[in-house]
């Protein structure tokens, strides 16, 4: 019996020699020549290649098939959620009630904030159980989560990048001293020329007085608009950002459509954000 145990140990040791070279494989560890086995026809090879819009194929290759598949595979996938192919990812995610909070869909097309998968990936305080992926930290980074958010915001299409309206899927902001930085992420690339003082308005509230800040420093990086303010007054209580408000000119995406600022699934509408000190 001792010999059996020794053999078991030796097998384990030998098996732990090293990782594979990855030669001829894609991000998912699948042969590039047979990538069609998992329907990767539209997948890019880099998570940074998302300048226009995210497809399910990209998510499959970069997130579901590369990270989530460690557990969510086969007939014993946790909570019955299989993410081991594009077909399965779509079938078990889109308009599929979550197991842990059945009133929420895992993916609610057009509504990333109301999609349980986003809450699980971001570790929202409302989730049941652990943040995903289970072997985190680290968890998915902001760019990876934005890919999921963008895909859902664009209607969670089965193929291609979808026909849903372009939306604002995430805003992050920080004030440090007299500086303020905000990043506003759109679900598709937008036309920089349409980002003007008329379509993007920034106000500060000082001693209950509303002050229009103009000009505003803006930089568009792919799908993310960065806004930077300097020399803010010490008594700044609140900073507001209005985009695409009624009566103003419209922000257009790269296909010339107005963004859906109020997230009502109808083209057009204003977006409002407030940062409070």
């Amino acid at each position, binding site marked *: 019996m001792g010999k059996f145990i020794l053999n078991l140990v030796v097998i*384990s040791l030998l098996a732990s020699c090293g*990782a594979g070279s*990855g030669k001829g494989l894609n991000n998912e560890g699948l042969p590039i020549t047979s990538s069609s086995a998992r329907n990767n026809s539209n997948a890019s090879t880099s998570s940074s290649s998302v300048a226009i819009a995210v497809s399910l194929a990209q998510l499959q290759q970069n997130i579901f098939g590369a990270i989530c598949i460690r557990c969510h595979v086969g007939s014993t996938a946790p909570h019955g959620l299989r993410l081991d192919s594009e077909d399965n990812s779509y079938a078990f995610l889109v308009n599929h009630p979550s197991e842990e909070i059945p009133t929420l869909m895992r993916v609610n097309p057009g509504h990333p904030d109301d999609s349980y998968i986003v809450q699980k990936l971001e570790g929202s305080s409302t989730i049941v159980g652990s943040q995903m992926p289970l072997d985190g930290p680290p968890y998915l980074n902001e760019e990876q989560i934005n890919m999921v958010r963008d895909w859902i915001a664009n209607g969670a299409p089965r193929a291609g990048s979808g026909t849903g309206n372009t939306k604002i899927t995430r805003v992050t902001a920080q004030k440090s001293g007299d500086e303020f930085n905000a990043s506003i992420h759109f679900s598709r690339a937008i036309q920089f020329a349409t980002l003007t003082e008329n379509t993007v308005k920034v106000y500060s509230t000082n001693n209950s007085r509303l002050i229009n800040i103009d000009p505003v420093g803006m930089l568009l990086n792919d799908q993310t608009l960065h806004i930077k303010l300097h020399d803010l007054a010490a008594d700044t209580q609140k900073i507001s950002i209005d985009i695409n408000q009624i009566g103003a000119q419209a922000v257009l995406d790269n296909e010339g459509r107005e963004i859906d600022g109020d997230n009502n699934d109808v083209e057009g509408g204003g977006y409002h954000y407030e940062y409070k000190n």
Partner: protein
Amino acid sequence: MNIKINLFLLRFFLLSAFCICAQVFAEPYLAFKNNLQCVACHVNPIGGGERNTFGAYYGSQVLPEKAGSLAILDAGNESETFRIGADFRANYFQRNRDSQAAPSDNESDSKTFAAQSGQLYMVLQPKDSPISLYIDEQIAPGSALNRETFILTKLGESDYVKAGRIMLPYGIRLEDDTAFVRQASGVNFDNSDSGVELGLRNAKTFYNFAVTNGTSAQANDDNHFQFLARGEYMGENWRVGASTIYNDAAAGSRSMVNVFGGINWQGYILLAQVDRIRDKSIVNVPETFATQTVSLLEVNKEIMKGYNVKLTTEYWDPDNNIQENQRTRHSILLEYTPFANLQFRVGLRKGDDIPQNNNGNYIDFFTQLHFYY
């Protein structure tokens, strides 16, 4: 005087139990080290969760560098019909990416504090009844998650039947859910399943048989079930076992089999497990079903009282039909238990994956504070 006599009797009883008890522990290396089964320390016969009186004694008097008070060591034993317990783990974690394997600047290094998990356990047992209700509720992070709730019925001295939401007794029940053998099999603390389990124990052997939904969800998603069988034999200072799971899902079956073993060799506690997993619903290479091979080797050594050094090496081939896709993970950590109910862990872990998968190439540094009750 009476107190002194009572303490003496309690100590005598517990030490006697330690020496003669041929059943169970839950941090698996401790069970292997002491040549006991999991039920020696835990209420749940397959280990983990609520500790029994001897488990409380071991955690208070044997494991720590400085023993706790004998008078309150089993404070979770509220009455002869009600027992509570808890675990909480808080982590600091730092990941450094392999810069050569992950040149992309979007894969940045990370640091974080995290409340890894907190559990509350409750056991209700009517007086003189062979039936008890066991509840294991995860209370952090996030909203509450029921990990296990089952009715345990004892059949004689040591056999039992469980029914309800249960964790499956598959292979070695490691605490680390991120271990490859836990991830690949899907049998971990995050994924319990609904069904029934039969356990047959004696001094040297432990057999488990279970039928569950196989979905780890609230209900089954087809009219097929999952079947499990596990057997373990204990020698003088070693043990071997094997387990298998067959999930006859409508979407395509999954079969898993593993062999595991361990030995206490001159104070070095070796644990090993090798798994093979076959999915008949996954075809990565035409005309073949995906077959995974996963292994774990763990070595523990108590370097002085309260200090344990743990080395692990792991291997994962996610599809044997594909070449050069293997992953490995190697860890070294120190577990220090200064006094009862508290343990510090500090460790380094190196993960190696194919260069294309940035997430799998890293060096981690982590510390953990573990409260157990």
